[in-house]
């Protein structure tokens, strides 16, 4: 397993190095995943290249999700992309960061229709905007919700409820 992951990582590293428009990007191995951090202005072009270049062939989008790192100044919001090459069974992961305020990424719904709801979920949970998304509205929560609940600053419980007595639960 590990030898194969290293092979994939090397392949990815040499591919990233060969792209002239991409800054120097280092591929790390985290458990059984090669992963790399890519600038958010380049992420769409890179994913397209990786999908369409026959030497890479990562044509399957496994998952996409938003992450919130309030302690990282300037890199508060993150989107994780995970790709799969179904022929060689290799999997890779990319991260892209942006700062607080108006977190915006380019949509990848034009590459994978599967990204549609995943991006809507990331918008719903974190308020991350995806430019060019055909229908970026809340998906799981009610339309008139006024905050993005998975951001770290919000409580898990509903603030407005009055029904449960917290004194017995140590909260």
């Amino acid at each position, binding site marked *: 397993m590990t030898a194969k992951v290293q092979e994939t990582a090397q392949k990815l590293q040499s591919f990233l190095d060969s792209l002239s428009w991409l800054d120097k990007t280092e591929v790390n191995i985290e458990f059984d995943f090669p992963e790399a951090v890519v600038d958010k202005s380049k992420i769409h072009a890179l994913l397209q290249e990786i999908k369409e270049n026959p030497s890479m062939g990562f044509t399957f989008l496994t998952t996409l999700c938003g992450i919130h790192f309030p302690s990282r100044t300037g890199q508060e919001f993150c989107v994780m992309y995970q790709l799969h090459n179904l022929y060689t069974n290799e999997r890779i992961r990319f991260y892209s960061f942006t700062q607080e305020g108006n977190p915006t990424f380019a949509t990848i719904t034009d590459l994978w229709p599967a990204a549609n709801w995943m991006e809507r979920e990331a918008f719903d949970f974190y308020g991350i905007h995806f430019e060019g998304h055909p229908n970026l509205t809340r998906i*799981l*929560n009610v339309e008139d919700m006024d905050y993005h*609940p998975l951001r770290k600053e919000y*409580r*898990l*419980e*509903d603030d407005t*409820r009055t*029904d*449960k007595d917290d004194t017995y639960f140590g909260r």
Partner: protein
Amino acid sequence: MNTSVTIDPALKPEGYEGQGFFATRLENLVGMARKNSLWPLPFATSCCGIEFMATMGSNYDLARFGMERLSFSPRQADLLIVAGTVAKKLGPVLRQVYEQMAEPRWVIAMGACASSGGVFDTYSVLQGIDKIIPVDVYIPGCPPRPEQLIEGIIKIQELVQTEGIDRRSTPAYQEKIAKYNLQ
């Protein structure tokens, strides 16, 4: 030809019996009839719905309780079985379903989520359906076993039998629906 009808003594309401006649209060008779012909509306949302399906299935056989026919239309249903988590997004839907049901109507909250929100003490989950509609029987469990659901249904049947014909005009019931702003 033998035309005599034997009534199960357990089902027989209180009354006077003589040769060829049986006298009882109308209330008792209607209660007995209602009790054994409830039409439940399964409002199954999640895990409890699967256990409800199991109860409906051949091993546990809900038909034994006069619930042969599930009513998927709220307008013909007598008993609303809310099985599973009700999120806030679903709350108005549940309330509308309840409002569409005709009197007399009863409600079972099946499982921890429907009764109190269960383990999902979160921003998106309604903390018990009794926030929006009145509930008659709560069934604990996550999810309750089919036996527990059956026990809950027996409890509802007891309620149905003893509550009287005109449940709606009783002050207790009036007070209850006023609390929920229902008509």
